[in-house]
């Protein structure tokens, strides 16, 4: 779990404390982060293997952007003085 938190914090370095809190308190947030990391890992893997830019990579990249927005949305809607 600690590795997952660190990876997400690297993407959103300004929100370390909130990410830490949400990670421990909100199962949905944990699932979302796991999906994001899985997706980001797949993008890297596919890029390594592929000779050229494919539709599949593009699809995964769009998904990664969507998940990133979802994470940010949850972090920001949290009460800053939690």
């Amino acid at each position, binding site marked *: 779990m600690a590795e997952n938190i660190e990876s997400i914090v690297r993407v959103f370095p300004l929100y370390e404390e909130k990410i830490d*809190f949400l990670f421990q308190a909100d199962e949905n947030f944990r699932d979302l982060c796991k999906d994001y990391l899985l997706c980001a890992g*797949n993008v890297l893997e596919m890029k390594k293997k592929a000779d050229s830019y494919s539709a599949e990579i593009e699809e995964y990249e769009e*998904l990664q952007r969507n998940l990133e927005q979802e994470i940010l949305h949850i972090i920001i809607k949290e009460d800053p003085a939690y």
Partner: protein
Amino acid sequence: MLPEKDEDLSLFHSENEVLDQLNRILSSDLFYKSSVLCSFLKFVVEETIAGRTDGLKEYTIGVNALGKPADFNPQIDAIIRIHAGRLRRLLNEYYSGPGNHDSIKIEIVKGTYVPLFRNQVIIKTEGEVTEQRKSVEFDRTKLTLAVLPFRNLCSKNEFQFFVDGLGEELTRNFSLSQDISVVAHYSTRKYAAQPEDIRVIGAELGAHYMITGSVKRSAGEIRVNVALVETMKGIEVWSHTYTNVLNIDNLMNIQDQIIENIYSCLGGYYGVIIRKSTIAQRRGFSNIASFDASLWNYYYHMNFSLESYLTTRKALEEALAVDPNYAHGLAMLAELHLDAYSLGYPTVEDPVNESYKLVKKAIKIDPECQHAYQELGWTNVYLKRKEDAINALEHCLSLNPSSVSSIGAVGFGMACAGEYKRAHILLTQSIELNPHCPWWFYLGFFLVYYQNKQYEKALEFANKIETKDVFMDPLAKVITKAQLGLTDKSQDDLNKLAEEFPEIMADLGPTLNTFLLDNSLIDDIMAGLNKAKVTVARTF
């Protein structure tokens, strides 16, 4: 007609109703911008309507709904699982916002791609009266109980006063409880003459649980059967038969004893009702927003851990953001701040004074709030005001003397305040009335026996403390075994103290001093550690 997928609800929706609801969702702004999630949802709903739920697997969804090639392999490509998570969250967002007033709720719960079609509570707008259509979901801000009139199975309806009195007195007792709301007995009386399915009565009264019962007599005995029924499923979750020698002159005493016993078993935050609710809620709802803050608090108290603490705190803070005058919630949050302070969990900057402010506010809002007085007592322990602590704890008890959980909690507070005799009486009383107590009641007993140098009894209770993330658990075992000359049998607990609680052990004296008012007890604890050859700082 489509069968409701949740068999518990046993309700039905027509195909057209479900398809209308699907179209409503798909044409909403939230879904309109995501063609992938629209295709996903449309496919799983339509397949379910067609009865082809067996085929709702990642492969079929990928190929038939999301345009994946025939060689798509979900074992190595997790895209369907990831989209499913997005779909669940988007549906939640839809029903929290634009779909708030839709009559049918389409859900895809974790672990399956087969959607559920549920009824939703309808709240009419524009000045119309608020009503519930087929109210199978209740306002869960507080657990609600109804006591149905007991059935009189005695010949010629004799002892009717006794039978009626059981329902009325039980209702009165539960009405003193802060943990559970109780429907007025007058509102339940009509069901005595009109028997109805318990699920229907539950829905009509908005009650999560119902107490039912009957009274019959033989030549020399009077027998009272009592049951607790969970109304959503209509299943009996607890029952008991009380048999007493029939003595006409003593019927009131018999009634009082039965009521006290029922309340002890079912009421309070470790009674059957809350225990069953916390288990059911945790099983069914992963989203903390849909889990009552107070139920999280009860769960936390039965299972102390950093994770349950953080979840409870978040749930309480969210509940208080919605209702800043939620007195019971203020008291629960005050308690959390104090616990975190003693247990080394992350907390607010000045937890003791923050708690004091919260309980003062809670008492101002609700002078009858028992939990607030319990926490006022606790705060005074932390502030080293022994007399004020004892007064507040005793006042707490006086507000509802039947509350077994409060009796035990006050007993524990008395032990920490150094009032060992009173602590022992209250803890014993509480545990005799309901043995399903939280682990810290055992810690209360441990403190009483340890300070009295009854180390074998202390070890008996130390061994009953089974919890994680709490340093007092291994500490109690280590020091008591050391006092009994059994240090060689405490290696695991010594390791646990060193590995899991190094910061607390480095600062043990001051930490104990936060919640134990009796310095001689702290000295005894340090002496136990010395015997176990553990060196810690005493100064505070």
